[in-house]
């Protein structure tokens, strides 16, 4: 599903980091649109199977694996940095788990716990470092989104 083409640039650049972020947002868009279709559908059963979420999880894992290829450590701190990209991966995992929240397995709970913990620790670190690109409403609202998943 996720074609790693030989056309991919081998030396990370700002543009390639931006492209990598774009790919994550496409995965997130797939999730969002799936959730919206489920909400609007009378047939809940077709959305209850784990196959779709397993596929998305695989895509996210692959995206995370490629962060060292595209994350730009020399960019000013923000979305293009590898550590920030990892945080975005954790956010995405938690969002994905929302789809299964009534059917969580013990492994899923561990996954959520790990993701939420990493996000909270990272957020505090970036906040104290006063990284300007982190001072956004979205950076504040995303941890707020994750807290209910901890409870």
């Amino acid at each position, binding site marked *: 599903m996720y074609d790693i083409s030989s056309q991919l640039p081998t030396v990370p*650049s700002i543009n390639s980091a931006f492209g990598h972020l*774009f790919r994550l947002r*496409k995965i*997130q868009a797939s999730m969002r649109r799936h959730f919206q279709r489920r909400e609007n559908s009378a047939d809940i059963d077709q959305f209850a199977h784990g196959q779709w979420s397993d596929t998305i999880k695989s895509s996210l894992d692959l995206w995370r694996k490629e962060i*060292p290829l595209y994350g730009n450590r020399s960019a000013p*701190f923000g979305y293009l940095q590898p550590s920030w990209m990892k945080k975005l991966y954790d956010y995405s995992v938690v969002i994905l788990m929302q789809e299964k929240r009534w059917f969580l397995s*013990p492994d899923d709970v561990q996954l959520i716990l790990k993701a939420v913990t990493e996000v909270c620790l990272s957020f505090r*670190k970036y906040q104290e470092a006063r990284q300007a690109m982190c001072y956004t409403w979205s950076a504040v609202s995303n941890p707020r989104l994750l807290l209910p998943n901890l409870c």
Partner: protein
Amino acid sequence: MVTIPAAYLEHLEARVAELEKEASAARPWVPGVQGEPDKGEPDQGEPEAQIEDVGEAVSSSPQLSLARNRGMDAGNWVDFNSLVTETMNSSYSEVSNGQDTVLAPRLGMESSLGFPPNIPQHLLGIGLYPVSHLGNSASPFDMGFKSIPQPIGSAFDDSTGETSPELKVLYANIYFANAQVQWPFLDEKKWKIWHNNYHSDDYASSYEGFFLGIVYAIGALLYGAIQGNPVHSACSTAFYNAAMVHYPQAIRQPSMLLRTQATLLVILYALHCPFTKDISDLMSSALLYCTSAMADIKKMASISSEEDAENGSDTMIAEHTFMACHILHEIVELGWDRPVSASYKSLDDKVNLRSSHLNQSCRVLIKFE
């Protein structure tokens, strides 16, 4: 029953201890390193560098380093925060910082919107700012000024309608060093031409005035976040208000791409602004302009020659604009509750379709069927 592996708990405890240690350290902690980007190294967790010296920490600050690379020469370092704090409540007076004597005008503008809360000193992190000396400046964006540009309470001089040119350059540098790197959709070359050719009369009622002002406004917001100084927030508000006077001209331009970029800039400002702005509606407008822009580009590509279609710079800007719009759209979707109307869903479908045609090399946009 859920069990957590002991090894993971130990790892967690170590991470928390590391965080507490960093928070209580006297020196600011600067994540990241300056150097070559990763080249396929295996993921080893968080390989952040530990900076041993405050001076090195400041020099290595990605934000200030990039701003410096755009023309600010490293010189004597001055505690800018303390300098401004001393003068905030005083009248126009001379303040000697031991290196240069600067004039600090009294803050005259009362902001009815209030200021961000005071940040404790030990959390200010990087609060130093270099005092440059006049150098051989090849471009107005070389920060070759001798004294620290003081943020003024009123961003505009009432008598001339002008503001400190050094301040504008500072904010512009901060924008292009930080925001442009993360959101590379603005045509930087074109913007700098507008900036260099700026005369208040020419841009009094033109769309360029919007693009100039909004970049200063965002740069001021970012600088305020870096410095922890609310004065820059006040400047940002003034620049933003001035820019929005020209926003209607910007979104009435024939170029849908320009309209998209204008709206995305306002969204960026709203994201960073300490006070809530209406992001959801802005995002809907951006989607509308963006889908129209992509349709226009596709139409032009089908009637233009292959050579024209491969105009690298314009193509890259268009692609980045689309990608930025898509990314921001997902950010807004995640963070804000939005009603899903039929028209919005139609736009979302179009954006989703076009994004699926962009391959990893991001060169398919012009060629897709």
